[in-house]
Structures are given as C-alpha cells and as structure tokens.
C-alpha cells in the first residue's frame, strides 16, 4: 500500500511534467508540410498587377512577391504554384480555399483577423524621410526645413500633422514622388518624404547618391493564411524567419527595390 501511494505520488508529479514536455516538443517541432499543405504544393494567390511586387510578364509572373513565394516554398520543402487573382478577389480566394497563402504586398488589416492569420512583416512601406548625407533630419525638429513631397498623398497628410503639432515647415508639394526626390538630390529641398517603395525605386536609378533615411511611419506588408490553417501558418512563420536570418529576404528585396 505504501509503495502504491509512493507510485501514485510520483506519477502525480511526473505525469503533468512529461505531458508538458511532450506538448513543448510538439509545439516546437515543425509541422509536417504534407499535413499543412495536403495538396502536395503551396498554392499562392498574388495580384499580378502591382509591380515591382508582382507583374504579369507575358503570362509569367515576376516580382518581389513571386521570388519570396519561391524561396518560402523551398524553405518549407514543397513546390509553389502561383495563381494570379485580382486585388479584390484575394481574400475571397484564400477564405474559399482556392489558395493556401496570399503573398501580395498586403497590409495587415486588423478587421480581417477573425478569418486570417498574418505572418510577421516581410517589408515596411512606411513613409521615409530622406535627407542629404551628413545633414540628417530629425522628424521631431523640422522647423525651417524645406520638405518636398507628393501633393495630397499620405506624405502630405503627415506634414499637415506635423504642422498641427506646431512645426513650421517650408512645404514643397510636387505632382510625383520622383519630383520630390529630385528636389532633394538637386539641393532644392532639405528633405523628401515619400513611401519606402518610391524612395527605393528612385535610389536604384541614382547609384552615386546615398541620402540618409529614417522611417517616420510603419506600413508593414505580411503574408496571409486562413485562420484555421494553423499548421500552414507555423511553417510560413518558420520559413520567413529563416529567410530573414540567412539574409535571403534582404537579397530578394534589394533585387527588386
């Protein structure tokens, strides 16, 4: 009886611990791709009308999101198949199960979280304040600075917000973001405020020009997975982390932007 009691006591202590360890192992073990993607491939929905993230080049999809999808599939260990879907139909195609993932320069939309899990961000298209090297601008101290931007854009709204907060900015509105960046490069502005993509595309064309940059706002892009596909989401998260750690994601971004 005594031995039985000791056994019971030992079991009471060790069994929950063993179950906990098993659960942790289960949690940290990568899900089986064959279970996460039972179709034997990863069907990726993409809007092929948004270069440089994705564009349809004579029936072949190209772009940052395509390269990211291929790298992600390699990391997961399953082939990728891309489906070109209009922007408006992306989430419907995900929720109806037509595709496993959406990789399409998607902003994180909190309102969709009942249906969708988002990955960690893979790109930030927030507003960048660019300034000449050696004359870095502080977004908190822009009094008297000449700031170029696209008229009526989100940059315009941000500058109006700074003005409401009391900043005395010399505003230089232009019709296009490239004009604002030209103004900075030509020394006609102290700073240019554009989204990160507009800045990076412009900077690619000006190899010798290396302005200072600082993010002013965040606009993260992420991969969307259906909420009930937790295994698929885990694999995507794991693969995306690996691509970040290895520098592969940065290489893909640099190739297109």
């Amino acid at each position: 009886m005594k031995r039985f009691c000791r056994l019971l006591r030992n079991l009471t202590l060790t069994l929950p611990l063993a179950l906990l360890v098993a659960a942790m192992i289960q949690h940290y073990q990568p899900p089986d791709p064959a279970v996460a993607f039972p179709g034997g491939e990863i069907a990726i929905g993409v809007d092929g009308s948004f270069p440089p993230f994705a564009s349809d080049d004579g029936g072949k999809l190209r772009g940052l999101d395509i390269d990211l999808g291929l790298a992600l599939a390699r990391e997961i260990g399953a082939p990728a198949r891309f489906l070109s879907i209009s922007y408006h139909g992306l989430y419907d195609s995900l929720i109806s199960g037509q595709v496993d993932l959406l990789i399409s320069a998607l902003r994180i939309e909190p309102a969709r979280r009942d249906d969708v899990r988002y990955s960690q961000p893979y790109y930030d298209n927030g507003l960048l304040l660019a300034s000449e090297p050696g004359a870095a601008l502080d977004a908190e101290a822009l009094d008297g600075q000449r700031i170029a931007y696209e008229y009526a854009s989100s940059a315009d709204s941000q500058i109006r917000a700074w003005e409401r907060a009391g900043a005395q900015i010399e505003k230089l509105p232009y019709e296009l973001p490239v004009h604002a960046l030209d103004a900075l490069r030509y020394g006609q502005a102290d700073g240019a405020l554009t989204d990160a993509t507009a800045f990076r595309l412009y900077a690619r064309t000006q190899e010798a020009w290396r302005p200072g940059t600082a993010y002013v706002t965040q606009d993260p892009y992420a991969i969307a997975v259906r909420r009930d596909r937790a295994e698929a989401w885990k694999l995507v998260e794991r693969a995306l982390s690996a691509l970040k750690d290895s520098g592969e994601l940065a290489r893909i971004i640099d190739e297109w932007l």
Partner: protein
Amino acid sequence: MFEQRTRVDSRRQRAGALAGMLALALLLLARKPVTDLLPAERQTVDTVKPQVCVHTLLENEVEEASILRSLELAREMGASAIVQFFPWAYVERERGRYDWGLTDRIARHAERQGLRIIARLGLMPDWARDGKTETLNHLTEDLFPAFADYAAAFAKHYAGVVDHLIIWNEPNLSFEWGYQPVDAARYVGLLKASYARIKAANPQAVILAGALAPTLEPRGSAMGLSDLEFLQDMYDLGAGSYFDVLAIHSYGFREPPEAEPGRDRLNFRRGELLREIMRANGDGHKPATITESGWNDHPRWAQAVRPPQRTAYTLRAFEFAGRNWDWLENLCLWALRFPADVHSYPDNSTLVSADFLEKPIYFALQDYARGWARSERPWLPPPKAKA
C-alpha cells in the same frame, strides 16, 4: 365617514397623480432624448459654390458626437447639401410602427448645421423579407405598397426638413434587387407606388429617381443593365410622370473630368448622355442632381488615379459642371467619411479619415467652396538640376 372617505379619496387621487407624474418622469428619463449635443443655434453654410455637396454615411454611427462632427466638417468645407441614407429597415423594424429616433438624430443635426438633406430611401426591414431571403434588397412587387407607406410616412415626418427623396438605389444592378434580374418595369412600379403617396404626405417633396449605377452591362447580363438603356426603358414605361429630378451617379474613374463621354465608356460626363435621354423623352425641363461622384486614389485599384490627380480632377469637375451644366442642382461627392476604415480601396474615396483627420483633398475643396485663395496648380513644377 363621508368626509373621511373624501379625504382618503383625495389622498388616493394625490398619490395616483404623484405616481403618474413619477411614471411620466421615469418614462422621459428612460427614453433617451433625440439629441444631447444639438447646437443651440442654427448654423449657416459659408460657401461661394452652392453646388458642392457630399454624401455622408451617418446611419451606422453609434456616437452622436460622430454625427455632429461629420456634419460640422461638411458645413465647414462649404458643402450646402448632403446625401444621406435613411434605411427603411432601421425605422420600421416592426410593421406599421415607425421609430424615428435614429433618423431624427441625423436630420436634426444636419438641419442645425444649415445643410440641405437629400434623403436616399431603401433597405428592407426584416419582417418584409419574411425569412425568404438573406439580402436586404429583395423587394418584390407585393411589397411596393409597404415601401410607399414608409416613404410617405418619412415625407410627412420630415416635411420642411427633408424635402428631397431618392427612391431606391442603383436599380439597374441585380445586387440592388437582392439578385433578382434587373427590370425597369419593376422600378417604375416602385416609383408609381410611391410618388402620389409622398406628394400627398408632403406637397413640397421633390422626388428623385434613377440613381443608376454607371455601367456598360449589356441587356441580359446577370449583373445589371447599362444605365443609358435602363433610363430609356424607364421612359418607355412611363416613368416620366413619377419623378421630379433625375439622380445621377457619375464617377470619373481614370479619366479627367473634361474627357468626352461615350456610350461605350464610363467617365464623369456620363451624365450628359443621361440628359440627352431626358431631353429626347420630353423631360429636358427637369433638373438633375449628381448624387454620387468622385475619383479614388488607392494604389491597388485599377480604376484609381494618383492623389494629386484625384484632387485636381475633383476641383475641375466642379468647374466644368458650373460652366456647362445649367441643369445640375448639386454635385455630391462620394463620400465624406466612413464610420470605420474598411482597409481597402473604398477608404481612398473619402475626404476625411475614419478618425476625423481631414485629408488634403478636403482642404482643397474647402478652399474652392469657400472662395479662399488657391493656386490653379497646387503643386510646384518638376525641379530642374542647376547647370
């Protein structure tokens, strides 16, 4: 004994009266007043462009303060009028019983801001659907008298406050009929059922018809029918006798406001083609109002333009309409503000963000409507490298 009974009776009467007064006070306290925030004085709209009008979306606002702030923003922008949806489903939740609480809140605030209200009526109550359909637009002929009852009750309740009423919305789209096939005869039937009832309830009422979606859908399409063909069908079925003003929806999409209209393209001047049909059918004397219009600047929408174009096109649209369209009463932009962001391209049609931040286009419109100084070209010429 008699005296004692009288005293008792008197006490009872006093207690009864007191209980009655208490019950009345409790009733008044329990019933939330129509408005807590109504400004004490009626405001006036300061505008030099009275055609400027904006579509508001206040029917789903929870906070009265949001209704007030939205309407203040419309007035401060210099809009003389608003288009606002007054859903039948919200007012007549029980058949034959009208609860004007929500709509009173909107109408009284708009009136107090000095704004003329163009009311859009539609959206079926639950009882009218009777479990037969999930959609809120599946209006069948047998329900036309019930809709006309609502329209007449609305016209009577708001006589002198809301005199402009749009009957239904975009009836040339199947979606707006709960996915029934599009049929101009059905819409004319709805107009016919409503027109006399509204006029009897409020002889000053102005009835707007149409509000047709700009579309190129061919006859037989499951989606809808071209607005031009639908309007001609309406006239062929005698609709001319059942409306006073044509409501027009004319979006610019990717074209500038001056772009030539055509039967095979959709742009801002599509209203001219609808006007031609009105004239050809002997209705050229009637005015029209554009109850939905504008451009969108979402970076992902194929029909969008860039933010500077959106602003410039919008201002030029008002200029063009003012110069060329003497038949136009108001040009109403879609839309002032959404109660919450939808996180997709419709957000980029608004003038004010969901959190009440005015977008640059709002300030440009305000400069225009209020006659404040503004440059013809609000942006600088492209910079040139110094030699």
